[in-house]
């Protein structure tokens, strides 16, 4: 089931970020890693912010992480979101990509059950024929 209505903004995709979104299409969470210093980075960038190398690779993450911060949106900022509130915007720290955080949503969890550090796992939602976004739920495995 879709978390948001079709009016929700879709990701703007450039050549710098396309591999991430292509990974999502295949339900694989890809994180960029510098092939010189091995530092992970997100969001995708042409250059490593730690060693300035332009060489990188895309590494599949397990999609496991923990809740770093969250905000519960009660106001429907778009009219089409009226049926979706409250929803949770989450900042998720990935377990296997040190330093990487993703902005996403925690789904299938009441806001009052959320807590910092909560273990989460990625789930992919195909929001259209050509766009898939990663969301998170409380870890089951």
């Amino acid at each position, binding site marked *: 089931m879709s978390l948001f209505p079709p009016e929700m903004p879709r990701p703007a995709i*450039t050549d710098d970020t396309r591999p991430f979104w292509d990974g999502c299409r295949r339900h694989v969470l890809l994180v960029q890693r510098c092939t010189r210093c091995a530092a992970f980075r997100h969001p995708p960038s042409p250059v490593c*912010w730690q060693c300035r190398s332009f060489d990188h690779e895309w590494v599949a993450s397990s999609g496991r992480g923990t809740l770093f911060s969250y905000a519960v949106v009660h*106001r429907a*900022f778009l009219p089409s*979101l009226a049926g979706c509130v409250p929803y949770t915007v989450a900042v998720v720290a990935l377990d296997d990509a040190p330093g990487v*955080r993703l902005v996403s949503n925690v789904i299938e969890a009441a806001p009052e059950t959320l807590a910092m550090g909560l273990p989460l796992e990625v789930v992919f939602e195909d929001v259209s024929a050509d766009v898939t976004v990663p*969301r998170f739920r409380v870890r089951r495995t």
Partner: protein
Amino acid sequence: MGRPMAHDQAAIVGIAESEYVRWGQLTRCTEYQLALETIVAAVADAGLTMDDVDGFASFSSDRNEFAFVATDLGVPEVRWAGTTWIVGGGGACAAVAEAARAIATGAARCVVVYRALAMGQFRRFGRPLTGDVQRLRPQDAALGFALPFGLFNATVGMALLVRRHMHLYGTTTEHLGHVAVTFRRHANRNPAAVMHERPMTLADHAAAPRIVDPFGLFDCCLETDGACALVLVAPERARDCPHRPVYVRAAAQGSGPRYGGGAWAMQYMPDDEYATGNTRRLARRMFASAGISPGDVDVAQLYDHYSGMVLLQLEDMGFCARGEGGPFAASGALAWPDGALPTNTAGGSLSEAYIHGLNHVVEGVKQLRGTAVNQVRDAEICAVASGSGIPTSALLLRR
């Protein structure tokens, strides 16, 4: 070490504010006319004429470009114009600092800093930035990792920072309430404030509808129509102006690591940086260069787009220890007249008006002139800080 700011080499000698009204209530004229009127009034307040003006500064890509302003006001010659790359409401103090630098270097002799923002005629800031996928700049690609998840305005972004602060330091929604209620009391004594006639208690604050938890309605700034302008000249010229000059003692601007355009869209700052207002480093630099310590500050104007962000900026500026923002606010420290650091004495963005923080600079000038509606007795030094959680700027003003 080179000095980031030429101390006391420029003075603010003119100020003006338009009427402040809720968004959409400015119907008597365009935003552009409001900008022009406010600039004319600030120049008159300085005891100068348009023939004296030769520079303009603004921020946040103000729609009312200097070239049209100067043309329509009949400015004989523009010698300098500048706008800062510091983001949005982070740029208010930076615009004043750029003007001061232009004066100090002799690039210009009389600079007007202005910002007009009629949200009702353009876009309400609380509304989502939904992105325009036609024009793909690096920023748009970065927004692609925020907008589809509902991180599409500052309310959500700053709520994430404040939630983390609550987790780390035990900050409570009641602490946020102390900020909002204190600034409201200040506004209740300020006839120009949008919330002048609207008292608020801690109970009102707690009962307000949730917007983006942990923020309720009264933790979020106003959306308004209004404009501000300031006039700067060199100190020797300032002495001939009708009002007591207010000197730009020091200024700083910048951003910490991995902030991107700010927390309204990006959440990638290092852990140690995350629950701050992104004002720490620049505050340290500013105080050090000024030879002034936070304890010397008599009155502060901090960026209150959200109540909780004031707590983070208080800590960043060194007015209280890290993590102590909540108890500091709850102690009454921010309240006029008896608090340790009367803050946002006109009501701020939460209760006076949202002019992107330029009204905070104007209020700072009033305090040092001795003409503020909630006047801090014998105020000599005022700290002003611009938008927190984004690339930003700050000023130390002295009389």
